C-alpha cells in the first residue's frame, strides 16, 4: 500500500485512479476489477510506465478511470493493439481489459494468437456471461439455458452452442505463460483475484510472456437482479461451469517464484 501520513488509515482509494466516478451500474463488479488493477499498479509502482488498452464494451471508458496512458481498441482487437504497442515499447507495461463478447467472441483470433505468440502483455478478462453494454445479449460465455435478450427462451445448446471456457482453451497454447481464473463475488475471492492480477503483471515485468486473468464478474442490470443477488447468482451458477484455478503456469513462472 502506498505510503501515507495518517498512521491509522487502513484503506483509501488507489492513487492510480483518477477522481472520475465510473459510469458502471451500481454494484457492477467491473468496478472491483478496476480497483484491484489500480491497487496492483500502485503497489508495483508501475503506473507511469503502463499503457492500458480499453475494449469496446461497458469498460470502453476505462481510460477515464486509470491515471496512466490509455488507448481504446476496436471491438475485440485490444490484444493486437497491445502487441503493436509492446513491440515498439518493450520496456513499458501494456495491459488489455476485455469483456467476454470482446475477447471470446469477436476477438477470438486476436487473443488466441497473442497467447500463441507469447506476447509479453497482460490481459484482464471480465467474464459476466453476457454482452453488458449493448443490452445483455448472449455471449460465448452465456450459460446453457440462460435467458438473455438474444436467447429469450434461454440459451439452447442445440442451435446456439455451448459456452467457451477461455482459460482452459488458452492453456493449451505453448506460448501462454500464466492463465488463471478467479472470481469477484466475495471478499476472499477478491483477495485471491488481486494476487493473481499482481502475479500477471509480475510475469510481464519480468518478461515471462503472455499472462491472462479471467475474472468471473456480475452484470446486475442485464441479469435483472440486485447487485447482492448477483453475487449469489454468480456463485451458484457460474462457479460450477467455470471452475476457479490456475490453468497454465509456465515453468519459467514457477521458477521465478513470483
Amino acid at each position: 500500500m502506498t505510503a501515507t501520513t495518517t498512521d491509522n488509515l487502513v484503506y483509501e482509494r488507489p492513487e492510480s485512479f483518477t477522481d472520475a466516478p465510473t459510469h458502471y451500474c451500481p454494484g457492477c463488479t467491473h468496478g472491483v476489477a478496476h480497483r484491484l488493477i489500480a491497487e496492483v499498479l500502485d503497489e508495483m509502482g508501475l503506473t507511469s510506465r503502463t499503457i492500458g488498452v480499453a475494449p469496446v464494451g461497458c469498460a470502453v471508458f476505462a481510460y477515464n478511470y486509470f491515471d496512466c496512458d490509455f488507448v481504446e481498441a476496436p471491438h475485440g482487437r485490444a490484444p493486437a493493439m497491445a502487441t503493436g504497442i509492446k513491440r515498439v515499447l518493450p520496456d513499458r507495461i501494456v495491459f488489455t481489459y476485455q469483456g467476454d463478447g470482446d475477447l471470446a467472441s469477436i476477438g477470438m483470433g486476436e487473443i488466441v494468437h497473442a497467447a500463441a505468440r507469447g506476447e509479453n502483455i497482460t490481459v484482464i478478462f471480465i467474464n459476466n456471461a453476457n454482452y453488458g453494454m449493448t443490452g445483455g445479449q448472449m455471449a460465448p460465455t452465456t450459460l446453457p439455458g440462460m435467458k438473455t435478450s438474444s436467447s429469450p427462451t434461454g440459451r439452447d445448446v442445440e442451435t446456439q452452442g455451448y459456452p467457451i471456457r477461455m482459460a482452459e482453451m488458452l492453456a493449451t497454447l505453448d506460448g501462454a505463460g500464466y492463465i488463471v481464473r478467479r472470481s469477484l463475488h466475495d471478499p476472499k475471492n477478491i483477495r485471491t483475484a488481486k494476487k493473481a492480477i499482481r502475479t500477471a503483471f509480475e510475469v510481464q515485468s519480468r518478461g515471462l510472456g503472455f499472462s491472462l486473468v479471467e475474472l468471473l464478474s456480475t452484470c446486475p442490470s442485464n441479469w435483472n437482479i440486485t447487485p447482492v443477488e448477483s453475487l449469489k447468482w454468480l456463485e451458484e451458477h457460474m462457479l460450477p461451469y467455470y471452475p476457479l484455478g490456475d490453468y497454465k503456469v509456465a515453468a519459467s513462472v514457477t521458477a521465478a517464484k513470483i
Partner: protein
Amino acid sequence: MQTELILSGFGGQGIMFAGQIISYAAMDAGKQVTWIPSYGPEMRGGTANCTVVIADDEIGSPVVKNPDAALVMNLPSLDKYEPTIKPGGVLVINASMVDRPGQRTDIKSIAVPCNEIADEIGNSRLANMVAVGALVEMSGALTVKDIEEALNAHMPGRHKHLLPKNIEAIKRGAEYVRAHR
C-alpha cells in the same frame, strides 16, 4: 395542424412509456404521430427524454427544437426545456421532484405534485400517468378519453390488472389541472 411534445425526466420515471401511450392515443384518433427517444451521452441512468409529434398529415421532422408543450419530471429537464417552449406553449412540471416553479410568463405553466397524487392512488410508480393526464388537459392536443381508450387497447395483457389505477391516475392529473389553472 401539428402538435409537438417533449417529455423528459430521470430514467425509470416512466417517461418513455408516457410518450408512447400518448402516441397510441394519437394513432387511434386517426392522426399521424412519431415518437422518438433522445440520444444523450448517457448510456444508462441519467436523464431520458422523448419527442412526440402529432399531426394531420405526413410528418416531416420527428425531432423538434421548440415544442408546443413540455413535461418535465426533474430539475435538469426543467432547466433544459423551459427556454425552448414556443411562446404561448405549455409547460407541466412535476412539483414532487422539482422545487422551483416555471419562470417564463409567455407560456402556460403548471406545477403538479405527481408523486404525491400517485401515492394517494397507492402506487408512486404512476406519477408518470398523473403527469400525462395533466399534460393532455393542458395542451388539448388529445382528450383524457383518448388516453383511456389507448391504455385499454394497447396495455400489454400481463399488465391489464393495473389498468383501473392507471386510468385513475390520468383523471387525477387532469382534474388537478382543471382545479389549479
